[in-house]
């Protein structure tokens, strides 16, 4: 079967088996390896991407299900020289250690601010319950998201 997705603003159309998961479409067919696979069981959130702007776990979605929809991965945010406000906040507040969970956490945080632009610390902790950080770096992650909430555009996908 064929699936056509807009990934980070670019159209990607590929032939694949129906059982192909969205995360494999992104990594193997689009060649975008910033989306990590962690637990592969809908728990850890490493594979989080934005689907039409909402956070989802790409290990638990068939590529076929989202044909025609729009996906944002970490590659679609900013660059080292021109970071997205959420990436900038993680950088400034050291919201990461090993970095494996970070793409998923950053995207989940953008979705969180899109739904709740002015969250409390508790709302951030609860809003990120679907993302596990095994370096136990939550403290600085929460600080980064709190700081990002006051920066315009932190809850938005770049045009």
């Amino acid at each position, binding site marked *: 079967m064929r699936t056509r997705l807009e990934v980070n603003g670019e159209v990607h159309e590929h032939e694949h*088996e129906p059982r192909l998961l969205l995360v494999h479409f992104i990594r193997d067919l689009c060649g975008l390896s910033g989306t990590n696979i962690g637990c592969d069981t809908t728990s850890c*959130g490493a594979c989080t991407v934005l689907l039409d702007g909402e956070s*989802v776990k790409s290990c638990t979605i068939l590529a076929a299900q989202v044909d025609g929809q729009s996906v944002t991965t970490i590659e679609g945010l900013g660059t080292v020289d021109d970071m997205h406000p959420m990436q900038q906040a993680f950088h400034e507040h050291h919201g990461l250690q090993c970095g494996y969970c970070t793409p998923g956490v950053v995207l989940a945080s953008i979705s969180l601010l899109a739904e709740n632009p002015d969250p409390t610390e508790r709302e951030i902790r609860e809003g990120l319950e679907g993302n596990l950080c095994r370096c136990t770096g939550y403290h600085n992650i929460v600080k980064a998201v709190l700081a990002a909430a006051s920066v315009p555009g932190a809850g938005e996908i770049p045009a």
Partner: protein
Amino acid sequence: MIPVGFEYERAETAEHALELLAEHGDDAKLLAGGHSLLPLMKLRLAAPAVVIDIARIEGLSYIRVDGAWLAIGALTRHRDLEISPLVLEHAPLLARAASQVGDPQVRHRGTIGGSLVHGDPASDLAAVVIALGGELVIRGRREQRTLGVDEFFTGFLETAVGADELLTEIRVPCVGGTAWSFQKFNRRAQDWAIVGVAAVALNGGAGIGLVNMGATPLRATASERAVASGAGAVEAASLAADGAAPPSDVQASEEFRRHLAGVLTRRALQECGLE
């Protein structure tokens, strides 16, 4: 983990889905948000030959008031239940439970219909529909039937929905303004409940649904009877696990689950205003 290969069909309408089911029979499974079925397929505990994607059927995602009932389309997502002004007004217990299903990513995909048809005894929403005394509208090719929730869950991961039928609507009575409580005990925020209790004050008594206390989502019948005949929260809650057969697993022993059911039911009834 990769599912066993299958044929993918996309249903455009409810009629189309029913035709596809009639054509493929027991070999087919319906896919909505996929947050119950796909994990099972990835673990190869389920291996349907045909997957029928119903997520794009128009008109199966809605929340509306229908007389004394709140009518919810089967494809309504947990996120939609969580923030819907109508659900918050008429069935706040359902909105609260929906807000505690999985995590935000799961709630962006998972649907109430998918959750109920999966028939998992650990389902929060199932216990809520039991507590509220809800109804399920099930459509076949020839007829549509409405079942009370007590006839819906028939066994472990089994429901009354036939292999050639489609759950289209969930109906719960509008109970805005009555006292309710949702108690969920787990060790980590996003986990399934080890035990959960949904309770609502209804007609001078209480509706009480139990999460993860047996092979199916359960009604705490003995506690409900006790409340109806005037028992206090402590006495009624002591009967919460009567007739239940909770599992022992890595999370909790059967004995601990029985204990939790009593404690959580007492808290829930007290929150509902019972002395």
